[in-house]
């Protein structure tokens, strides 16, 4: 950057002096403008919080419901599996009883044949 000339320096000095001539009503209005601009930032932060909180809560609730459903489904599945096993065990018992009967019958046939 080139060094400012004395003319530029004088202009700069007077422009800075011009800033100092700002009247009290203008300073007050500028402060108001600044505060309202900054307040908008804070309100946008809080307005973002509630929708975000709502979405998070709804997601958690949905996840809870789904998990609950999944657990219930597992329990039902387990119960039906147990029933199948019991039925299977009953069938096996009958089979063994039948097998005993057939062995007995075979022994009788063998005895009578001999």
């Amino acid at each position, binding site marked *: *950057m080139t060094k400012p000339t004395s*003319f530029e320096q004088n202009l700069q000095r*007077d*422009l*800075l002096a011009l800033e100092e001539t700002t009247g009290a009503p203008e300073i007050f209005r500028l402060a108001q403008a*600044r505060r309202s*601009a900054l307040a908008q930032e804070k309100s946008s932060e809080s307005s973002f919080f509630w929708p975000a909180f709502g979405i998070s809560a709804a997601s958690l609730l949905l996840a809870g419901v789904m998990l609950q459903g999944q657990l219930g489904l597992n329990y039902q599945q387990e119960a039906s599996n147990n029933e199948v096993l019991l039925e299977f065990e009953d069938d096996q018992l009958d089979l063994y009883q039948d097998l005993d009967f057939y062995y007995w019958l075979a022994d009788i046939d063998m005895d009578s044949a001999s």
Partner: protein
Amino acid sequence: MENTVAVVADKQLPYTTVEQFLKHIERRAFHMARLGTGNADSAMDIVQDSMYKLVEKYSTKQPLEWKPLFYRILSSRLTDYYRRKAVRDRLFVWSKSTSVDSEDSFPDALARAPGRNSETPDEMLMRSQRIQQLDRSVQQLPNRQRQAFMLRCWEGLSTIETAIAMEISEGSVKTHYSRAMHALRDMLEDYRHD
């Protein structure tokens, strides 16, 4: 945006929060807008709008970037103002003389301003007259020249920072600034300094 941080990284900043930044810049921005519009109320609206925009969109940016961004917004708002004014002037030619954008009574503020303790009444008067003359001369510059002059000479932005703020090339900034200085030299021929 170009790498603004790299452009202004070597500067010491007198602010770290947006509030401090706005406080630091608001008076200068107001006077720049006033010189651009010739009306204190319009200038106030433009500055307020620029503050809103900066806080809304760029408050999360690094403090180094705020100044060029703020002046870019201000420049854009001034351009919008000139466009609207041009349309309004074309539509309401007959009411131009009673337009609200006629020169406002801001120079009265000069009279309200406290003088420096070291100044004699004569010096205060001379300073006041000089500032009024400068005020009028700057208002007479074409828009782009005035913007380049104010950002470079008043705000002390570099050529590249001014280019970012005005959304033009560095070459154009140099041209506008040079022409503005030329015009001011002519207009302020009788400009006397301490």
